[in-house]
């Protein structure tokens, strides 16, 4: 997952993969492999190369909203922005206007791609099928247009918010 983090006036990009007890993260070119234990919502013990970081995130995390994060007793004020959230929010309000993005609603696996890039589709046509929690979910095109890009292929793992295809 790719996110932007704002601490004060410093902005950094983070790219991470959450595998539950292990997390791989890259922040502004620095790579980390971290063991994670979640004690409660927002409370994590991170272990990086043996060093322990006791972390506590206060307040509900919302894209763009600032939360207080404690690492040991050092306090930071961080706002996480989900670039996909911003774009999809923009798309939702500007329907007829410009490209439509097909976005994965939850983490899952692409089990079938129903169209090819460049194909003309009608509103309601199936574009990709995503499997999550033993259910298959056919993602349909919201408008008539052309599949300008397919971001995934069969077998790909997706996270919530990932863009699967763009219809123009």
């Amino acid at each position: 997952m790719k996110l932007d983090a704002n601490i004060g006036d410093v902005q950094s990009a983070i790219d991470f993969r959450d595998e539950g007890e292990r997390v791989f993260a890259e922040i502004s070119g620095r790579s980390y492999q971290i063991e994670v234990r979640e004690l409660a919502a927002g409370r994590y013990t991170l272990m990086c190369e043996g060093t322990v970081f006791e972390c506590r995130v206060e307040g509900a995390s919302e894209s763009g909203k600032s939360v207080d994060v404690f690492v040991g007793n050092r306090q930071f004020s961080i706002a996480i922005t989900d670039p996909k959230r911003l774009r999809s929010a923009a798309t939702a309000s500007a329907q007829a206007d410009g490209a439509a993005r097909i976005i994965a609603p939850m983490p899952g696996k692409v089990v079938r791609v129903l169209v090819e890039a460049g194909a003309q589709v009608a509103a309601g046509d199936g574009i990709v099928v995503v499997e999550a929690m033993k259910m298959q979910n056919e993602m349909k095109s919201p408008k008539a247009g052309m599949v300008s890009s397919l971001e995934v292929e069969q077998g790909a793992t997706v996270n919530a918010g990932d863009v699967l295809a763009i219809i123009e």
Partner: protein
Amino acid sequence: MFQKILIANRGEIAVRIIRACRDLQIAPVAVFSEPDAGALHVRMAHEAYCIGPAASTESYLNIGAIIEAAQKAGADAIHPGYGFLAENAQFARAVGAAGLTFIGPTPAAMEVMGSKTSARRAAAAAGAPVVPGTTEGLKSFAEASELAAQFGYPIMLKAAAGGGGKGMRQVAGPGELHSAFAGAQSEAAAAFGDSEIYLEKIVEKPRHIEIQVFADTRGNYVHLGERECSIQRRHQKVIEECPSPIGDQSLRERMGEAAVKIARAVDYVGAGTVEFLFSDITRDFFFLEMNTRLQVEHPVTELVTGIDLVREQIAVAAGAKLSFKQEDIRWQGHAIECRVYAEDPDNNFFPSPGRITFLRVPSGPGIRDDGGVAEGDEVSIHYDPMISKLAAWGPTRAQAIDRIRRALDEYAVGGIKTTLPIFREIVRDEEFIAGRLDTGFISRFNERREDRTVDESRTDRDMAVIAASLAYARGQSKAKRSESSGEESKWKKAARDAGLHRAPSRRVFERR
């Protein structure tokens, strides 16, 4: 001995007194204002009575309501704690008139020491050195001007009815006197209802050193040594220690003797504190004022002497003889206390009220925390925003510092801002560690702080970003999961509506 004691206070001191009552198996009765109904001190009491709405004047300062609660509860005695009505002679009289014992000194002693000018006169009459200045209120600006010149600038104008740093003005030279005089008078009138102000010469490089005194009703007087309280912000103590890092045994004896003389002069009973200013330059000490109550920082004396002051207050009020003599008192090791307040050090120490979402109080060897809140409690805007007093004892001052530093690092509070971060810096400061203290400490520390480069650990920042990202991502997944499980139950609902069942009914089999 008393069966029931009503504690006319709230927060950490109410909790402290409740604990002493429980030690003695005396039933503690709490009082609370409406917003304090869920407070820790109420939960820890045997009985509790609501005495009014949020405003202190209508609750914790409401003499009638408090005495009524005591009578309803059938309490034998009232402990006033500190602040609120603790030094209010009218309250002490009302308690006595209601047939209850007031745990503290006589109303007369309170009145003599309650006015700073009359206290200075009493101390001087008892032969103690007082801070050079007037022992009567200033009658006019002209008089102030003349006396200021006589004593010599810089001078301090102070409220006779004052305390807590209010109604005080430091005056560097004659040019500032006029506005300082007017300002001090009006602030005194607003804060204490009494515009009387007096004048003191400023003591050079003063250390605030106070002596704990104790007396019973049988004429026994002792002193329990000194506390150094020089680390103050706007005349409010923030860190206290016992003994003073000065470490002068003969000074302790001389100051102790002076304090006892002063206590005797007003027929003092119970716990009291005589405050002095000690000049690091001239090595003289001067009487400042006497507090006719238990002091906030009493834990450091308890840790070093091993004497339970609140327990002793209760015993003495019940008529017992002091359980120790002057020669029995020993000072062992060193104790340091930090006042943890719900204030924002990055925003001029503005109060930071709110709900405590997380609380981890330190523990381990030599650590004592006197707290008034628990996790989930609300720190209210109506009262003193104290979370707790964190104290550490060690066999030496250096070890006490090791422990308080460790304990401050362990302490974690969520949901509100606290003074913990500034304490973590102070206990690592070289001047603090060297014990070079006087009342100018905090302003010099702030200057040193500006010059210091903050050790910004990039790894910590990165971990914070990772934690925030995880919280976001996992929060989103969780939300999605609960949304989709909602869809699943719609299937079930549809099946139910269609009258479909999972298994054939028993009756069908039985019929065959």
